[in-house]
């Protein structure tokens, strides 16, 4: 099983779990992460106003997930994986790199709840949900399941071997922590710790 990960942090982190042979079978995604893999691997994340898109090629079994904070920054197109366009493009590339056929990809999308109330109108969650639907439509990737919007933060668990996703509403006690994290990331905007490589001319 191969897997690849982009994001602000790399490697195994708290919330991940590995098999006895060291292969990662359960991976937690944080804001800005993009992870692809196949086989008996589970990707999970916690979403408030953020959205996560699960992509999968049902023939090869390759799939992946991202965790998008905002569609783009408020002032300009955002170029880190916290932002939708970049995160979606990287996710598509990562699953293709592992053998997925772009023409067979199907998507499931979750999150985009109105938990950052008072920030703006439309809310960040609404903007995220709208972005994801539009992006997938433009790229002709079928959105076969979604739970976008609402007022509840959710946990998402994506089983790559079957393509199933289990979504659960989060109890209110976890909401302050989610709000704090998303608001902090939102406030810092494009000042990402993500490393951008220098272009190379041969």
């Amino acid at each position, binding site marked *: 099983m191969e897997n690849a990960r982009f994001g602000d942090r790399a490697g195994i982190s708290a919330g991940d779990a590995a098999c006895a042979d060291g292969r990662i079978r359960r991976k937690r995604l944080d804001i800005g992460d993009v992870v692809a893999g196949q086989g008996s691997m589970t990707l999970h994340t916690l979403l408030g106003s953020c959205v996560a898109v699960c992509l999968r090629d049902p023939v090869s079994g390759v799939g992946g997930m991202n965790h998008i904070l905002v569609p783009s920054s408020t002032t300009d197109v955002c*170029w880190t*994986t916290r932002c939708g366009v970049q995160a979606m493009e*990287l996710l598509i590339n990562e699953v*293709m790199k592992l053998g997925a*056929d772009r023409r067979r990809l199907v998507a499931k999308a979750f999150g985009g709840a109105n938990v950052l109330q008072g920030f703006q109108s439309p809310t960040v969650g609404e903007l995220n949900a709208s972005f994801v639907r539009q992006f997938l439509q433009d790229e002709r990737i079928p959105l076969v399941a979604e739970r976008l919007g609402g007022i509840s933060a959710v946990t998402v668990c994506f089983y790559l071997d079957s393509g199933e996703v289990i979504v659960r509403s989060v109890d209110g006690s976890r909401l302050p922590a989610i709000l704090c994290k998303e608001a902090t990331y939102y406030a810092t905007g494009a000042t990402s710790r993500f490393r*951008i*490589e220098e*272009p*190379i001319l041969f």
Partner: protein
Amino acid sequence: MMGLALREGGFDVVEAENGEEALAKLGSTAVDLIVTDLNMPVMDGIRLIESVRREPALQRTPILMLTTEGSEVKKQQGTAAGATGWITKPFDPDKLMATVAKVLG
């Protein structure tokens, strides 16, 4: 996203969904620069570059590879095929435009 960045930089952009479609468009449209992804359906970026370099009219056209792939092996394949440069995603639009300006001389 690439098209957006280039258009904002004042360029006219012709887009294609894969290498085969790009080759067809290159047959009927004169371009100053080619930017291609590596992983594409139908025909990948390396095969596209190889095909482009076989066309006498396109042998000197700069080609930038824009991809999430950053391994040295892939970069060597790109060089061997005839790529002019390599930009790893995610990219900084200012650096992209500086690179484009450089290769267009």
